Protein backbone atom coordinates (compact mmCIF):
# COMPACT_ATOMS: atom_id res chain seq x y z
CA UNK A 1 0.00 0.00 0.00
CA UNK A 2 2.81 2.43 0.87
CA UNK A 3 4.38 1.81 -2.57
CA UNK A 4 1.08 2.76 -4.18
CA UNK A 5 1.03 6.05 -2.32
CA UNK A 6 4.60 6.81 -3.34
CA UNK A 7 3.65 6.22 -6.98
CA UNK A 8 0.51 8.33 -6.66
CA UNK A 9 2.58 11.21 -5.31
CA UNK A 10 5.16 10.73 -8.07
CA UNK A 11 2.41 11.03 -10.67
CA UNK A 12 2.14 14.69 -9.63
CA UNK A 13 5.63 15.67 -10.77
CA UNK A 14 6.17 18.66 -13.06
CA UNK A 15 3.04 20.55 -12.11
CA UNK A 16 2.79 24.05 -13.50
CA UNK A 17 1.21 25.28 -10.25
CA UNK A 18 -0.40 23.84 -7.14
CA UNK A 19 -3.54 25.36 -5.64
CA UNK A 20 -4.84 23.92 -2.39
CA UNK A 21 -8.53 24.66 -1.88
CA UNK A 22 -9.50 21.87 0.54
CA UNK A 23 -9.45 24.15 3.60
CA UNK A 24 -12.54 22.31 4.84
CA UNK A 25 -10.52 19.23 5.66
CA UNK A 26 -7.09 20.56 6.61
CA UNK A 27 -4.83 23.47 5.71
CA UNK A 28 -1.23 24.52 5.21
CA UNK A 29 0.31 26.64 7.95
CA UNK A 30 2.10 29.81 6.76
CA UNK A 31 5.78 30.30 7.66
CA UNK A 32 4.95 33.29 9.87
CA UNK A 33 2.73 31.13 12.05
CA UNK A 34 5.28 28.32 12.25
CA UNK A 35 7.97 30.82 13.23
CA UNK A 36 5.83 32.12 16.06
CA UNK A 37 5.33 28.55 17.30
CA UNK A 38 8.90 27.26 17.00
CA UNK A 39 10.44 28.78 20.16
CA UNK A 40 7.71 27.14 22.24
CA UNK A 41 8.87 23.73 21.06
CA UNK A 42 12.54 24.39 21.60
CA UNK A 43 13.66 27.29 23.75
CA UNK A 44 10.90 28.85 25.82
CA UNK A 45 7.60 28.02 27.42
CA UNK A 46 8.09 24.28 27.02
CA UNK A 47 7.15 23.77 30.66
CA UNK A 48 3.78 22.85 32.11
CA UNK A 49 1.88 26.14 32.49
CA UNK A 50 0.42 25.03 35.83
CA UNK A 51 3.81 24.56 37.52
CA UNK A 52 6.14 26.79 39.46
CA UNK A 53 9.23 27.33 37.36
CA UNK A 54 10.32 29.68 34.59
CA UNK A 55 9.49 27.44 31.58
CA UNK A 56 6.06 26.84 33.17
CA UNK A 57 5.42 30.55 33.74
CA UNK A 58 6.55 31.27 30.19
CA UNK A 59 4.03 28.76 28.94
CA UNK A 60 1.30 30.25 31.14
CA UNK A 61 2.13 33.73 29.88
CA UNK A 62 1.96 32.56 26.25
CA UNK A 63 -1.36 30.78 26.75
CA UNK A 64 -2.88 33.75 28.59
CA UNK A 65 -1.73 36.16 25.88
CA UNK A 66 -3.16 33.86 23.21
CA UNK A 67 -6.47 33.71 25.07
CA UNK A 68 -6.48 37.51 25.42
CA UNK A 69 -5.96 37.93 21.69
CA UNK A 70 -8.62 35.44 20.69
CA UNK A 71 -11.03 36.86 23.28
CA UNK A 72 -10.54 40.30 21.75
CA UNK A 73 -11.15 39.05 18.18
CA UNK A 74 -14.19 37.01 19.19
CA UNK A 75 -15.62 39.77 21.33
CA UNK A 76 -15.49 37.77 24.56
CA UNK A 77 -15.63 39.74 27.81
CA UNK A 78 -12.63 38.05 29.40
CA UNK A 79 -9.86 35.67 28.29
CA UNK A 80 -11.26 33.15 30.78
CA UNK A 81 -14.19 32.70 28.41
CA UNK A 82 -11.85 31.11 25.84
CA UNK A 83 -11.36 27.40 26.62
CA UNK A 84 -8.70 25.78 24.47
CA UNK A 85 -9.45 22.26 23.21
CA UNK A 86 -7.57 19.91 20.89
CA UNK A 87 -9.80 20.93 17.96
CA UNK A 88 -13.30 21.70 16.69
CA UNK A 89 -14.56 18.15 17.08
CA UNK A 90 -13.57 18.24 20.74
CA UNK A 91 -15.07 21.71 21.25
CA UNK A 92 -18.39 20.57 19.73
CA UNK A 93 -18.35 17.46 21.93
CA UNK A 94 -17.58 19.59 24.98
CA UNK A 95 -20.47 21.94 24.22
CA UNK A 96 -23.17 19.32 23.84
CA UNK A 97 -22.02 16.62 26.22
CA UNK A 98 -20.77 19.21 28.72
CA UNK A 99 -24.19 20.85 28.82
CA UNK A 100 -25.93 17.48 29.17
CA UNK A 101 -23.66 16.50 32.08
CA UNK A 102 -24.26 19.82 33.86
CA UNK A 103 -28.03 19.58 33.61
CA UNK A 104 -30.09 17.91 36.33
CA UNK A 105 -33.32 18.00 34.31
CA UNK A 106 -35.03 14.65 33.69
CA UNK A 107 -36.12 15.41 30.14
CA UNK A 108 -33.51 16.95 27.89
CA UNK A 109 -34.16 18.13 24.40
CA UNK A 110 -31.53 19.07 21.82
CA UNK A 111 -32.45 21.28 18.89
CA UNK A 112 -30.25 21.35 15.79
CA UNK A 113 -30.74 22.05 12.10
CA UNK A 114 -30.59 19.14 9.68
CA UNK A 115 -27.43 20.54 8.07
CA UNK A 116 -25.29 20.75 11.19
CA UNK A 117 -21.76 19.31 10.86
CA UNK A 118 -21.51 15.60 11.60
CA UNK A 119 -19.62 16.30 14.84
CA UNK A 120 -22.82 17.90 16.14
CA UNK A 121 -25.26 15.39 14.63
CA UNK A 122 -23.24 12.37 15.79
CA UNK A 123 -22.90 13.74 19.33
CA UNK A 124 -26.64 14.48 19.42
CA UNK A 125 -27.34 10.93 18.30
CA UNK A 126 -25.03 9.53 20.98
CA UNK A 127 -26.77 11.65 23.64
CA UNK A 128 -30.10 10.29 22.42
CA UNK A 129 -28.95 6.69 22.57
CA UNK A 130 -26.94 6.78 25.81
CA UNK A 131 -28.48 9.63 27.81
CA UNK A 132 -32.10 9.48 26.65
CA UNK A 133 -32.03 13.00 25.24
CA UNK A 134 -34.42 13.82 22.45
CA UNK A 135 -33.18 15.52 19.28
CA UNK A 136 -35.31 17.79 17.15
CA UNK A 137 -33.95 18.66 13.73
CA UNK A 138 -35.31 21.77 12.10
CA UNK A 139 -35.36 21.85 8.29
CA UNK A 140 -33.61 24.31 6.00
CA UNK A 141 -34.66 25.88 2.71
CA UNK A 142 -33.08 25.33 -0.71
CA UNK A 143 -30.19 27.68 0.16
CA UNK A 144 -29.63 26.15 3.58
CA UNK A 145 -31.30 28.82 5.72
CA UNK A 146 -33.16 27.87 8.87
CA UNK A 147 -36.57 29.39 9.46
CA UNK A 148 -36.62 31.35 12.74
CA UNK A 149 -40.29 30.48 13.31
CA UNK A 150 -39.46 26.79 13.11
CA UNK A 151 -36.70 27.36 15.63
CA UNK A 152 -39.05 29.21 17.97
CA UNK A 153 -41.58 26.39 17.78
CA UNK A 154 -38.94 23.75 18.43
CA UNK A 155 -37.71 25.33 21.69
CA UNK A 156 -39.72 24.62 24.82
CA UNK A 157 -39.19 24.28 28.56
CA UNK A 158 -37.41 20.95 28.11
CA UNK A 159 -34.86 22.28 25.62
CA UNK A 160 -31.40 21.88 27.11
CA UNK A 161 -29.32 23.10 24.21
CA UNK A 162 -29.68 24.49 20.71
CA UNK A 163 -26.81 24.14 18.26
CA UNK A 164 -26.84 26.00 14.94
CA UNK A 165 -23.67 26.68 12.95
CA UNK A 166 -23.26 30.38 12.17
CA UNK A 167 -21.89 29.42 8.76
CA UNK A 168 -22.53 26.05 7.20
CA UNK A 169 -19.08 24.62 6.38
CA UNK A 170 -20.24 22.86 3.21
CA UNK A 171 -22.44 25.39 1.45
CA UNK A 172 -21.43 28.64 3.17
CA UNK A 173 -24.92 29.67 4.29
CA UNK A 174 -24.67 32.52 6.85
CA UNK A 175 -27.48 31.95 9.34
CA UNK A 176 -29.16 34.79 11.22
CA UNK A 177 -27.30 33.56 14.28
CA UNK A 178 -27.76 36.62 16.51
CA UNK A 179 -31.51 36.58 15.96
CA UNK A 180 -31.61 32.81 16.43
CA UNK A 181 -29.89 33.10 19.83
CA UNK A 182 -32.27 35.88 20.88
CA UNK A 183 -35.34 33.88 19.94
CA UNK A 184 -34.10 30.84 21.83
CA UNK A 185 -33.36 32.86 24.97
CA UNK A 186 -36.74 34.57 24.80
CA UNK A 187 -38.47 31.19 24.61
CA UNK A 188 -36.39 29.63 27.36
CA UNK A 189 -33.70 31.62 29.21
CA UNK A 190 -32.26 28.36 30.60
CA UNK A 191 -31.58 26.84 27.20
CA UNK A 192 -27.89 26.88 26.29
CA UNK A 193 -27.25 28.34 22.85
CA UNK A 194 -24.26 26.86 21.03
CA UNK A 195 -22.96 27.73 17.61
CA UNK A 196 -20.28 25.97 15.60
CA UNK A 197 -18.44 29.15 14.62
CA UNK A 198 -15.61 27.29 12.83
CA UNK A 199 -16.39 28.69 9.39
CA UNK A 200 -17.40 32.12 10.70
CA UNK A 201 -14.35 33.03 12.83
CA UNK A 202 -12.26 35.41 10.75
CA UNK A 203 -14.88 35.39 7.95
CA UNK A 204 -17.40 37.79 9.51
CA UNK A 205 -17.70 40.30 12.34
CA UNK A 206 -19.50 39.29 15.49
CA UNK A 207 -18.88 40.17 19.13
CA UNK A 208 -20.06 37.23 21.21
CA UNK A 209 -20.54 39.42 24.28
CA UNK A 210 -23.16 41.44 22.42
CA UNK A 211 -25.20 38.37 21.57
CA UNK A 212 -27.13 35.68 23.43
CA UNK A 213 -24.63 33.04 22.30
CA UNK A 214 -23.44 30.99 25.29
CA UNK A 215 -21.02 28.60 23.60
CA UNK A 216 -19.15 28.92 20.30
CA UNK A 217 -16.69 26.55 18.66
CA UNK A 218 -13.71 28.34 17.12
CA UNK A 219 -11.36 26.79 14.61
CA UNK A 220 -7.62 27.29 14.17
CA UNK A 221 -6.86 25.48 10.91
CA UNK A 222 -9.71 27.14 9.02
CA UNK A 223 -7.91 30.47 9.42
CA UNK A 224 -4.55 28.86 8.49
CA UNK A 225 -3.50 28.09 12.05
CA UNK A 226 -2.20 24.66 13.05
CA UNK A 227 -4.45 21.62 13.43
CA UNK A 228 -4.73 19.96 16.82
CA UNK A 229 -6.03 23.06 18.57
CA UNK A 230 -9.34 24.86 18.75
CA UNK A 231 -11.40 26.63 21.35
CA UNK A 232 -14.82 26.81 22.87
CA UNK A 233 -16.07 30.22 23.85
CA UNK A 234 -17.88 29.70 27.15
CA UNK A 235 -19.84 32.74 28.27
CA UNK A 236 -19.40 33.40 31.97
CA UNK A 237 -22.06 31.58 33.97
CA UNK A 238 -22.90 29.00 31.29
CA UNK A 239 -23.50 25.63 32.87
CA UNK A 240 -21.24 23.02 31.31
CA UNK A 241 -18.94 20.40 32.76
CA UNK A 242 -15.69 18.95 31.49
CA UNK A 243 -16.19 15.71 29.55
CA UNK A 244 -12.88 13.95 30.10
CA UNK A 245 -11.06 13.26 33.35
CA UNK A 246 -7.40 13.76 34.15
CA UNK A 247 -4.77 15.96 35.70
CA UNK A 248 -6.28 19.33 36.43
CA UNK A 249 -4.91 21.96 34.03
CA UNK A 250 -5.04 25.72 33.48
CA UNK A 251 -7.83 24.98 31.02
CA UNK A 252 -10.68 24.05 33.33
CA UNK A 253 -12.70 22.28 30.63
CA UNK A 254 -9.85 20.23 29.17
CA UNK A 255 -7.61 18.24 31.53
CA UNK A 256 -4.11 17.27 30.41
CA UNK A 257 -1.01 19.30 29.61
CA UNK A 258 -1.71 22.27 27.37
CA UNK A 259 -0.11 22.29 23.92
CA UNK A 260 1.51 25.72 24.17
CA UNK A 261 3.07 25.91 20.67
CA UNK A 262 -0.22 25.07 18.95
CA UNK A 263 -2.11 27.60 21.08
CA UNK A 264 0.51 30.24 20.19
CA UNK A 265 0.11 29.34 16.49
CA UNK A 266 -3.68 29.61 16.76
CA UNK A 267 -3.34 33.11 18.24
CA UNK A 268 -0.81 34.14 15.58
CA UNK A 269 -3.08 32.92 12.77
CA UNK A 270 -5.94 34.87 14.38
CA UNK A 271 -3.80 37.99 14.54
CA UNK A 272 -2.89 37.69 10.84
CA UNK A 273 -6.55 37.27 9.93
CA UNK A 274 -8.07 39.93 12.18
CA UNK A 275 -5.47 42.64 11.55
CA UNK A 276 -7.12 44.12 8.47
CA UNK A 277 -10.11 41.83 8.71
CA UNK A 278 -12.17 43.90 6.25
CA UNK A 279 -9.40 43.74 3.69
CA UNK A 280 -8.99 39.98 4.14
CA UNK A 281 -12.73 39.36 3.84
CA UNK A 282 -12.88 41.59 0.75
CA UNK A 283 -9.99 39.68 -0.83
CA UNK A 284 -11.57 36.29 -0.15
CA UNK A 285 -14.95 37.43 -1.43
CA UNK A 286 -13.41 38.74 -4.64
CA UNK A 287 -11.56 35.49 -5.30
CA UNK A 288 -14.61 33.44 -4.29
CA UNK A 289 -16.77 35.22 -6.86
CA UNK A 290 -14.10 34.93 -9.54
CA UNK A 291 -13.83 31.21 -8.91
CA UNK A 292 -17.56 30.62 -8.57
CA UNK A 293 -18.72 32.72 -11.52
CA UNK A 294 -15.77 31.56 -13.61
CA UNK A 295 -16.67 27.89 -13.16
CA UNK A 296 -20.42 28.43 -13.59
CA UNK A 297 -19.83 30.26 -16.88
CA UNK A 298 -17.09 28.02 -18.26
CA UNK A 299 -18.64 24.62 -17.47
CA UNK A 300 -22.10 23.50 -18.60
CA UNK A 301 -24.63 21.60 -16.49
CA UNK A 302 -23.67 22.96 -13.09
CA UNK A 303 -25.58 23.87 -9.94
CA UNK A 304 -24.41 26.30 -7.28
CA UNK A 305 -24.98 24.79 -3.86
CA UNK A 306 -25.91 27.37 -1.22
CA UNK A 307 -26.65 31.09 -1.52
CA UNK A 308 -24.64 33.73 -3.37
CA UNK A 309 -23.53 37.27 -2.52
CA UNK A 310 -23.46 38.58 1.05
CA UNK A 311 -25.54 35.69 2.37
CA UNK A 312 -22.69 33.31 1.60
CA UNK A 313 -19.42 32.93 3.53
CA UNK A 314 -16.70 34.95 1.77
CA UNK A 315 -14.49 31.89 1.21
CA UNK A 316 -16.92 29.13 0.24
CA UNK A 317 -17.53 27.73 -3.26
CA UNK A 318 -19.61 24.58 -3.71
CA UNK A 319 -20.72 23.52 -7.17
CA UNK A 320 -22.31 20.32 -8.48
CA UNK A 321 -21.06 19.16 -11.85
CA UNK A 322 -23.77 16.99 -13.32
CA UNK A 323 -22.79 13.81 -15.20
CA UNK A 324 -19.48 13.90 -13.36
CA UNK A 325 -18.65 11.71 -10.36
CA UNK A 326 -16.89 13.64 -7.60
CA UNK A 327 -14.17 11.19 -6.61
CA UNK A 328 -13.01 10.80 -10.20
CA UNK A 329 -13.00 14.57 -10.57
CA UNK A 330 -10.97 15.16 -7.38
CA UNK A 331 -8.30 12.74 -8.66
CA UNK A 332 -8.25 14.29 -12.12
CA UNK A 333 -7.90 17.77 -10.58
CA UNK A 334 -5.20 16.56 -8.20
CA UNK A 335 -3.15 15.34 -11.17
CA UNK A 336 -3.36 18.93 -12.46
CA UNK A 337 -2.33 20.40 -9.08
CA UNK A 338 -5.76 21.55 -7.91
CA UNK A 339 -6.72 20.05 -4.56
CA UNK A 340 -10.41 19.96 -3.64
CA UNK A 341 -12.92 17.65 -1.95
CA UNK A 342 -16.29 16.25 -2.94
CA UNK A 343 -19.61 15.46 -1.28
CA UNK A 344 -19.70 12.24 -3.30
CA UNK A 345 -20.41 9.05 -1.40
CA UNK A 346 -17.16 7.67 -2.78
CA UNK A 347 -14.78 10.23 -1.33
CA UNK A 348 -16.67 10.20 1.95
CA UNK A 349 -16.37 6.39 2.17
CA UNK A 350 -20.02 6.24 3.12
CA UNK A 351 -22.93 4.83 1.19
CA UNK A 352 -24.75 8.13 1.08
CA UNK A 353 -23.57 11.47 -0.20
CA UNK A 354 -23.42 14.66 1.88
CA UNK A 355 -26.42 15.07 4.22
CA UNK A 356 -26.19 18.83 3.72
CA UNK A 357 -26.69 18.61 -0.04
CA UNK A 358 -29.58 16.17 0.21
CA UNK A 359 -31.17 18.39 2.91
CA UNK A 360 -31.23 21.37 0.53
CA UNK A 361 -33.00 19.16 -1.99
CA UNK A 362 -30.12 18.16 -4.22
CA UNK A 363 -30.67 14.81 -5.88
CA UNK A 364 -28.07 12.16 -5.12
CA UNK A 365 -26.58 12.50 -8.61
CA UNK A 366 -25.96 16.21 -8.00
CA UNK A 367 -24.46 15.51 -4.57
CA UNK A 368 -22.10 12.87 -6.05
CA UNK A 369 -20.79 15.48 -8.48
CA UNK A 370 -20.32 18.25 -5.92
CA UNK A 371 -16.97 19.94 -5.35
CA UNK A 372 -16.20 22.01 -2.25
CA UNK A 373 -13.51 24.69 -2.35
CA UNK A 374 -12.45 27.44 0.03
CA UNK A 375 -10.23 30.39 -0.74
CA UNK A 376 -7.96 31.96 1.90
CA UNK A 377 -6.41 35.37 2.46
CA UNK A 378 -3.21 33.97 0.88
CA UNK A 379 -4.65 32.78 -2.44
CA UNK A 380 -3.88 34.98 -5.41
CA UNK A 381 -5.59 36.03 -8.64
CA UNK A 382 -3.07 33.80 -10.45
CA UNK A 383 -4.16 30.81 -8.37
CA UNK A 384 -7.77 31.31 -9.38
CA UNK A 385 -6.85 31.91 -13.03
CA UNK A 386 -4.97 28.59 -13.01
CA UNK A 387 -7.93 26.73 -11.47
CA UNK A 388 -10.25 28.25 -14.08
CA UNK A 389 -7.86 27.13 -16.80
CA UNK A 390 -7.57 23.47 -15.81
CA UNK A 391 -10.99 22.80 -14.24
CA UNK A 392 -13.13 22.78 -17.42
CA UNK A 393 -10.70 20.33 -19.10
CA UNK A 394 -10.90 18.04 -16.08
CA UNK A 395 -14.71 18.00 -16.11
CA UNK A 396 -14.68 17.44 -19.85
CA UNK A 397 -12.41 14.43 -19.57
CA UNK A 398 -14.48 12.78 -16.83
CA UNK A 399 -17.66 13.46 -18.78
CA UNK A 400 -16.09 11.83 -21.83
CA UNK A 401 -15.70 8.62 -19.80
CA UNK A 402 -19.33 8.89 -18.70
CA UNK A 403 -20.40 9.30 -22.33
CA UNK A 404 -24.02 8.37 -22.84
CA UNK A 405 -24.24 6.28 -19.65
CA UNK A 406 -25.95 9.06 -17.72
CA UNK A 407 -28.33 11.45 -19.40
CA UNK A 408 -29.05 14.54 -17.33
Amino acid at each position, binding site marked *: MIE*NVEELIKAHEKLEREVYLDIENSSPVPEEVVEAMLPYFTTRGYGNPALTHKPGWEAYEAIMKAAQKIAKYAGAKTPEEIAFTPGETEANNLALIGAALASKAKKKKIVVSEIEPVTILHVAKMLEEKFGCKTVKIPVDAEGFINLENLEEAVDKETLIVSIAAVNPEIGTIQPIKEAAEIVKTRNPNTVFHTDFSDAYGKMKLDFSRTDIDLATISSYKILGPRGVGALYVKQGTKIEKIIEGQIATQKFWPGIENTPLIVGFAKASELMFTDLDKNIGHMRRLRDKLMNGLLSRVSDTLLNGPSGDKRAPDNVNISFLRCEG*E*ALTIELSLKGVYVSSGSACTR*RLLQPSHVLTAIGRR*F*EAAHGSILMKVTRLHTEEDIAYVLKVFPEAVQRIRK*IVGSTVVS
Partner: protein
Amino acid sequence: MSRVPLPYNQKVLELFRNPKNLGRMEDATVSAVAGNPMCGDMITFYLKIDDEEVIRKASFESYGCAANIATSSILTEMIKNKTLKQAWNVSWKKIVEEIGGLPSIKFHCGILAVGALRRAIRKYYEEKGYTPKWLPKELTFEEKQALEEEELAERLAKRMDGQQ
Protein backbone atom coordinates in the same frame (compact mmCIF):
# COMPACT_ATOMS: atom_id res chain seq x y z
CA MET B 1 -15.15 2.31 11.87
CA SER B 2 -12.27 4.21 10.41
CA ARG B 3 -11.82 6.15 7.25
CA VAL B 4 -9.32 4.49 4.94
CA PRO B 5 -7.38 6.46 2.38
CA LEU B 6 -7.53 5.20 -1.20
CA PRO B 7 -4.00 4.41 -2.30
CA TYR B 8 -4.82 3.27 -5.84
CA ASN B 9 -1.98 1.41 -7.51
CA GLN B 10 -0.24 2.47 -10.72
CA LYS B 11 -2.30 0.22 -12.96
CA VAL B 12 -5.56 1.66 -11.65
CA LEU B 13 -4.19 5.18 -12.04
CA GLU B 14 -2.97 4.46 -15.58
CA LEU B 15 -6.34 3.02 -16.63
CA PHE B 16 -8.05 6.01 -15.03
CA ARG B 17 -5.84 8.43 -16.95
CA ASN B 18 -5.85 6.52 -20.23
CA PRO B 19 -8.76 4.11 -20.21
CA LYS B 20 -8.62 1.36 -22.82
CA ASN B 21 -11.67 0.63 -24.96
CA LEU B 22 -13.56 3.72 -23.87
CA GLY B 23 -16.67 4.90 -25.62
CA ARG B 24 -19.97 4.01 -27.16
CA MET B 25 -19.86 1.35 -29.91
CA GLU B 26 -22.22 2.16 -32.72
CA ASP B 27 -22.12 -1.31 -34.31
CA ALA B 28 -22.38 -3.26 -31.05
CA THR B 29 -24.20 -6.59 -31.16
CA VAL B 30 -25.45 -6.02 -27.66
CA SER B 31 -25.10 -3.48 -24.84
CA ALA B 32 -26.17 -3.45 -21.21
CA VAL B 33 -26.17 -1.02 -18.29
CA ALA B 34 -25.78 -1.74 -14.59
CA GLY B 35 -25.91 0.52 -11.57
CA ASN B 36 -27.56 3.85 -11.04
CA PRO B 37 -26.34 7.44 -11.01
CA MET B 38 -27.95 7.88 -7.60
CA CYS B 39 -25.36 5.50 -6.20
CA GLY B 40 -22.62 7.29 -8.11
CA ASP B 41 -21.82 4.01 -9.76
CA MET B 42 -22.92 3.04 -13.28
CA ILE B 43 -21.42 1.11 -16.19
CA THR B 44 -22.43 0.48 -19.80
CA PHE B 45 -20.79 -2.35 -21.76
CA TYR B 46 -20.86 -2.68 -25.54
CA LEU B 47 -19.97 -6.03 -27.15
CA LYS B 48 -19.38 -6.92 -30.79
CA ILE B 49 -19.97 -10.67 -31.01
CA ASP B 50 -19.26 -12.81 -34.09
CA ASP B 51 -21.15 -15.91 -35.32
CA GLU B 52 -18.88 -18.21 -33.28
CA GLU B 53 -20.02 -16.39 -30.12
CA VAL B 54 -16.60 -14.81 -29.73
CA ILE B 55 -16.32 -11.24 -28.45
CA ARG B 56 -14.41 -9.39 -31.17
CA LYS B 57 -14.67 -5.93 -29.64
CA ALA B 58 -15.67 -4.69 -26.22
CA SER B 59 -15.98 -1.14 -24.97
CA PHE B 60 -17.41 0.69 -21.97
CA GLU B 61 -18.65 3.95 -20.57
CA SER B 62 -18.60 4.60 -16.86
CA TYR B 63 -20.07 7.04 -14.39
CA GLY B 64 -18.17 6.39 -11.23
CA CYS B 65 -14.98 6.63 -9.26
CA ALA B 66 -11.47 5.85 -10.50
CA ALA B 67 -11.84 2.18 -9.46
CA ASN B 68 -15.10 1.88 -11.37
CA ILE B 69 -13.45 3.27 -14.51
CA ALA B 70 -10.35 1.09 -14.16
CA THR B 71 -12.21 -2.17 -13.46
CA SER B 72 -14.58 -1.61 -16.39
CA SER B 73 -11.69 -0.85 -18.70
CA ILE B 74 -9.62 -3.87 -17.68
CA LEU B 75 -12.63 -6.16 -18.04
CA THR B 76 -13.07 -5.08 -21.68
CA GLU B 77 -9.43 -6.10 -22.21
CA MET B 78 -9.86 -9.42 -20.43
CA ILE B 79 -12.83 -10.55 -22.52
CA LYS B 80 -11.51 -9.58 -25.94
CA ASN B 81 -11.37 -12.61 -28.27
CA LYS B 82 -12.98 -14.77 -25.58
CA THR B 83 -16.09 -16.86 -26.14
CA LEU B 84 -19.22 -15.72 -24.33
CA LYS B 85 -18.87 -18.71 -22.02
CA GLN B 86 -15.29 -17.76 -21.14
CA ALA B 87 -16.32 -14.14 -20.63
CA TRP B 88 -19.19 -15.24 -18.38
CA ASN B 89 -16.75 -17.05 -16.15
CA VAL B 90 -14.54 -14.03 -15.43
CA SER B 91 -15.02 -13.42 -11.71
CA TRP B 92 -14.78 -10.08 -9.93
CA LYS B 93 -11.91 -11.51 -7.90
CA LYS B 94 -10.03 -12.20 -11.13
CA ILE B 95 -10.55 -8.57 -12.14
CA VAL B 96 -9.22 -7.32 -8.82
CA GLU B 97 -6.22 -9.64 -9.24
CA GLU B 98 -5.63 -8.54 -12.83
CA ILE B 99 -5.66 -4.89 -11.82
CA GLY B 100 -3.11 -5.51 -9.09
CA GLY B 101 -5.46 -5.20 -6.12
CA LEU B 102 -8.05 -2.68 -4.97
CA PRO B 103 -8.91 -1.22 -1.58
CA SER B 104 -11.58 -3.58 -0.19
CA ILE B 105 -14.12 -0.78 -0.08
CA LYS B 106 -13.87 -0.72 -3.89
CA PHE B 107 -14.50 -4.43 -4.53
CA HIS B 108 -18.08 -3.56 -5.40
CA CYS B 109 -16.78 -1.82 -8.54
CA GLY B 110 -15.47 -5.16 -9.83
CA ILE B 111 -18.72 -6.84 -8.82
CA LEU B 112 -20.79 -4.26 -10.71
CA ALA B 113 -18.58 -4.65 -13.80
CA VAL B 114 -19.19 -8.43 -13.84
CA GLY B 115 -22.91 -7.81 -13.22
CA ALA B 116 -23.09 -5.51 -16.24
CA LEU B 117 -21.17 -7.90 -18.49
CA ARG B 118 -23.34 -10.91 -17.55
CA ARG B 119 -26.44 -8.82 -18.13
CA ALA B 120 -25.17 -8.10 -21.66
CA ILE B 121 -24.51 -11.81 -22.28
CA ARG B 122 -27.99 -12.79 -21.08
CA LYS B 123 -29.48 -10.08 -23.26
CA TYR B 124 -27.60 -11.44 -26.25
CA TYR B 125 -29.12 -14.90 -25.82
CA GLU B 126 -32.56 -13.49 -25.09
CA GLU B 127 -32.43 -11.61 -28.36
CA LYS B 128 -31.18 -14.75 -30.13
CA GLY B 129 -34.02 -16.69 -28.55
CA TYR B 130 -32.11 -19.59 -27.03
CA THR B 131 -30.28 -20.42 -23.81
CA PRO B 132 -27.02 -22.36 -23.81
CA LYS B 133 -26.72 -25.12 -21.20
CA TRP B 134 -23.90 -23.41 -19.30
CA LEU B 135 -25.90 -20.25 -18.69
CA PRO B 136 -27.33 -20.36 -15.14
CA LYS B 137 -31.09 -19.91 -14.96
CA GLU B 138 -30.87 -18.11 -11.63
CA LEU B 139 -29.22 -14.71 -11.39
CA THR B 140 -25.66 -14.97 -10.10
CA PHE B 141 -24.34 -13.09 -7.07
CA GLU B 142 -22.87 -10.27 -9.20
CA GLU B 143 -26.10 -9.79 -11.16
CA LYS B 144 -28.09 -9.73 -7.94
CA GLN B 145 -25.73 -7.12 -6.50
CA ALA B 146 -26.31 -4.87 -9.51
CA LEU B 147 -30.05 -5.36 -9.15
CA GLU B 148 -29.94 -4.60 -5.43
CA GLU B 149 -28.06 -1.38 -6.06
CA GLU B 150 -30.63 -0.33 -8.63
CA GLU B 151 -33.51 -1.14 -6.30
CA LEU B 152 -31.86 0.82 -3.51
CA ALA B 153 -31.53 3.80 -5.85
CA GLU B 154 -35.19 3.57 -6.76
CA ARG B 155 -36.21 3.53 -3.10
CA LEU B 156 -33.99 6.53 -2.40
CA ALA B 157 -35.43 8.38 -5.39
CA LYS B 158 -38.95 7.75 -4.14
CA ARG B 159 -38.01 8.95 -0.69
CA MET B 160 -36.46 12.12 -2.08
CA ASP B 161 -39.49 12.80 -4.27
CA GLY B 162 -41.72 12.27 -1.27
CA GLN B 163 -39.84 14.95 0.63
CA GLN B 164 -40.15 17.55 -2.08
